[in-house]
């Protein structure tokens, strides 16, 4: 029973069709990398999975939830799907610990003490246990992004989505974030990552999906896909030095 099932999804922005019929399934524990040019639809696809973007046609099932337009059903889905954004989006008016505790307390109804314990736990998992009381402003980009990951983890999601999470970071800071993500993968989290980090994808993702012009153009085991791309578009994409 796949934990993510995307079936015939079409999506338009106004007159522009961005997803032209996408089918994808992801099994529990799989790590799937999604690569492609800007405009290929990869970030859009990711954002459709947790309902940030509506789809015009097709079906999306995630962690036993059917994706619906809004309301309670969508909130239930979002309890089981975590997302990490390119621009971290930490809440600037809350300390790190409070950032992480907010959703468990407010959306899951967990009491303050338990939420705090959980927050410390996930902070430790991302290697920032001593930053519980810090303000997001005072952290580096890499640290902020790791806090963002912890914030999603605190909801104990079944699936984690990563939307180009290292693209906004200075090169020297990407390493710590990628290391965190690799650890998560080893612990068995189901992950979908939109990324430009090809070496990372090749090493950590069991499967890689190449998107082109709103469709899944090629997909397969990561090592094989990177070593021997079949379609000319993927060959060109990989050959154009984005390794």
């Amino acid at each position, binding site marked *: 029973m796949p934990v993510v099932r995307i079936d015939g999804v079409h999506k338009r922005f106004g007159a522009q069709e961005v997803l032209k019929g996408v089918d994808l399934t992801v099994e529990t524990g799989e790590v799937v990398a999604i690569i492609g040019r800007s405009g290929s639809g990869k970030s859009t696809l990711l954002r459709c999975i*947790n309902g*940030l973007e509506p789809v015009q046609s097709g079906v999306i099932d995630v962690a036993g939830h059917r994706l619906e337009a809004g309301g309670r059903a969508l*909130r*239930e889905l*979002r*309890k089981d*799907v*975590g*997302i990490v*954004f390119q*621009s971290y*989006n*930490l*809440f*600037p*008016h*809350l*300390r790190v610990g409070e950032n992480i505790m*907010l*959703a468990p307390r*407010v*959306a*899951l109804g967990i009491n303050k003490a338990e939420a705090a314990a959980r927050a410390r736990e996930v902070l430790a998992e991302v290697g920032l246990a001593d930053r519980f009381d810090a*303000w*997001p*402003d005072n952290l580096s980009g890499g640290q902020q992004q790791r806090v963002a990951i912890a*914030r*999603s983890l605190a*909801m104990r999601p079944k699936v984690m989505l990563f939307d180009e999470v290292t693209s906004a970071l200075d090169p020297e800071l990407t390493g710590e974030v990628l290391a965190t993500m690799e650890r998560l993968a080893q612990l068995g989290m189901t992950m979908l990552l939109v990324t430009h980090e090809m070496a990372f994808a090749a090493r950590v993702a069991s499967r890689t999906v190449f998107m082109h012009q709103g469709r899944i153009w090629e997909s397969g085991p990561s090592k094989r896909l990177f070593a021997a791309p079949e379609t000319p578009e993927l060959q060109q994409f990989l050959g154009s030095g984005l390794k």
Partner: protein
Amino acid sequence: MGFHFQFQPVLARSDLLLEGLWLTLQLAALGILGGALLGILLAMSRGLGPRATRWLIDCYVELIRNTPFLVQLLLIYFGLPSLGVKLNAEQAAVLGLVIYLGAYVTEIVRAGIESVHRSQIEAGLSLALSRWQVFRHIVLAPAIARVWPALASQFTLVMLATSVCSFISVQELSAQAANIESDTFRSFETYIVVALVYLGLALLLRGLLALLGAALFPAGSGLGRLRQTAR
């Protein structure tokens, strides 16, 4: 030509000054608290409610902001009794101040709400918070921090606007000034003294609001930074 100022007769009537000051303070306090509450509630309803609510609130804001407070006050004071609503001058004054400030606060807070970046809201929604929870925990505090200076200015203006209530015979500071003036015939001196009292009030209010702002949105947090960059 020499100016012969006599402040003594004016200061001898400080009992009237204090009475007027007290009423001014009460009107200002009620007006500010009521108006701020109304404005925040309306800004929230506008953000979360259906299109019809938004349109109604927008009409209210535009009407109040494009007509003088004096005319609104006269409408309330003379108009409502003709509909059978019994209210005295002080009640009309407070009602007028609340309705007046409410419109400005709605507008100011709305701008603050809209300045919160969409990505913050997306982050909140993605964490399975409801729209209301996102609003309450993620949007509201930063919004008010950002517009705090604008709110402080508006509160001060409303405190000064209590002087208009003298038009409907509310015996606040300006009305008492007229009483003192007719008693002592020292017109200029009277108004100098009253002007100084108002100035003192305005500076005091600003100071209090600045302190409140610093307390609510401390300098170390992201909120403090929002409050300061708005200057």
